[in-house]
């Protein structure tokens, strides 16, 4: 698997370049700004793009703009955006690009858990949607009223599937059987009037769309 990295902090860029090969991820190019990212992607045709949201010259959302325009060219290009803060508007814009699949929105905090981070990158490259737990926590806060009817366990399950975990991964994290997880998912989707679906990805997007919609 080959990635192109865009990150303006040299320290972090070199750290990622050194770390990812340990997990069998080849770094095709590591660049420091948005125009270089676009050029590198066109040149190397990577399996995944990892980009910082903020980059020079204005340090606002150059990385995100570049990611959105790359997704406009190729809606299936997997992209992981790294951000220092939760910014719902930016996360939403990225999710709206292409089919919503093969998208990752992660806080930079997650890079520290190196093995898990590499796992997230692989899953996005394989077509999954991965959303930072902090983003999901804040989204669930926003829809607190309707979520009150869920049991505590169902809320845990909802949070995990919104982050993009499969039934198997959810079962492992919560120490449940996969059948148990499937039952919880069925119950909570019914309570929230969401379509029942076995397709993990379609479910993630439905749950995210539900959480992101205005509560009133």
């Amino acid at each position, binding site marked *: 698997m080959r990635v192109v990295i865009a990150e303006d902090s040299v320290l972090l860029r070199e750290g990622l370049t*050194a*770390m990812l090969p340990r997990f069998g991820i080849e770094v095709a190019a590591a660049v420091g700004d948005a125009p270089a990212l676009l050029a590198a992607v066109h040149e190397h045709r990577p399996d995944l793009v990892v980009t910082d949201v903020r980059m020079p010259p204005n340090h606002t*959302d150059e990385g995100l703009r570049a990611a959105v325009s790359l997704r406009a060219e190729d809606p299936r290009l997997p992209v992981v955006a790294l951000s220092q803060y939760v910014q*719902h*508007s930016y996360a939403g814009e990225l999710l709206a690009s292409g089919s919503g699949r093969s998208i990752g929105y992660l806080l930079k905090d997650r*890079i*520290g858990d190196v*093995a898990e981070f590499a796992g997230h990158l692989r899953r996005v490259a394989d077509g999954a949607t991965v959303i930072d737990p902090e983003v999901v926590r804040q989204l669930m*806060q926003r829809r*607190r009223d309707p979520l009150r009817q869920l049991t505590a366990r169902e809320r845990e399950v909802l949070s995990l599937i919104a982050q993009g975990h499969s039934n198997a991964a959810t079962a492992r994290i919560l120490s449940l059987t996969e059948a148990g997880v499937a039952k919880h998912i069925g119950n909570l989707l019914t309570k929230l009037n969401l379509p029942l679906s076995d397709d993990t990805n379609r479910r993630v997007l439905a749950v995210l769309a539900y959480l992101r919609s205005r509560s009133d």
Partner: protein
Amino acid sequence: MTDTLLRAVTRRQFLVSAWPWRGFAYSATTALAAGLLWLVLAVPLTPLVSAAVLLHAGRTSGYLIVAACLGLIGVGLLALLGPQVALAVARAERWRLRLAGDTPPPPGPRGALYTDPATWRAVAYMVLLGVVGPLWLGALGIVGLLVVSTPVSVQHRISVADSLLGIGTRAGGGLLLIPALLYLTALCGGAHAALARMLLYPERSEELIEVARSRTRLVHAFDAERLRIERDLHDIAQQRLVALTMQIGMARLDLPPSSPAAAAMAVAHEQAKTLMAELRNLIRGISPRTLRELGLRAAVEELAAASCLEVRVDVASARLPAEVEAIAYAAISEALANAVKHAAASEVTVTVRRAAGRLVVEVRDEGGGGADPGRGSGLTGLADRAAAAGGRLLMSSPPGGPTVLLVELPCAS
């Protein structure tokens, strides 16, 4: 620029706006206020009038002594009550002035009662209300009677078989007088209100304006400094911390899980991650990027999402001047934090709306109330920032709630 009745009269769409009604309401309440004022003034004036009547009636020494006593009582009462009544009238009239247009925030108390120029300006206004007010109100009343009596008068002319021209003139004149009356009412009311504004709101002297300017510069300097600190923390400290956490993560991969070093590294890893989250919160408090990049609504929505309370947000998406956005955001952030800490509230409503050249921010929680605005230095600092920007911060928190924080900032539309 403030919008007033007198200014509204000059506009072409005056008659189809709400201003004629406001002018009417202002004039009608002026009549009421003048009447009430004379009722109150009757107390000190009665002895004076009685003295004058006595003097007129006879010139014997007995009459003179009683008249002098009554006169002294009247003058004493007037000197004692006059300024107090004038100040009370001034307060009530400032409140009523809102009918006739925008008003600046009320002046604070200054000086002793008899030496404060504000007292004597209030007395001057009282004379204006009591003497000049009835004059223009009387004139308006006559025009009003002409308008109101039109149908009766026309009917009368028909019954006595007046000429068609006479009847038409009276009917047409009556109809034409309606807009004239509306204009006259607004004009007289507006002029009265303008005089009231001059007398009841002290002019800011040159010196005060200069002080306000220097305060504004100070606030700008603080804002610039915050921005620089935020940028440094983000560009240097945060990136290094992420790289450090990543290096620790890498090192942990190579340590045998059972070794003592592995346990220590795990703790170090956790601490670095906690520090990263704390640093992020710190930076958000200093100068939120979402606010600068996406504006007040997005930033407040993010505050609401991060809060553990149920926060309803009603904010227009339009961008505002950076300084106004920064103060409004800081006030909302502080109010939400206070609601979490003290109010035991479960639900908070944040409303931001623009009205007549001002931005009005309201944060309301249905919690226990009883908050003391003087205690938290956060609110005091905010009040200073709002004042430096030419606005003000108000708070109401009666025991039992609700707690309402109101910030008004000048904001040209």
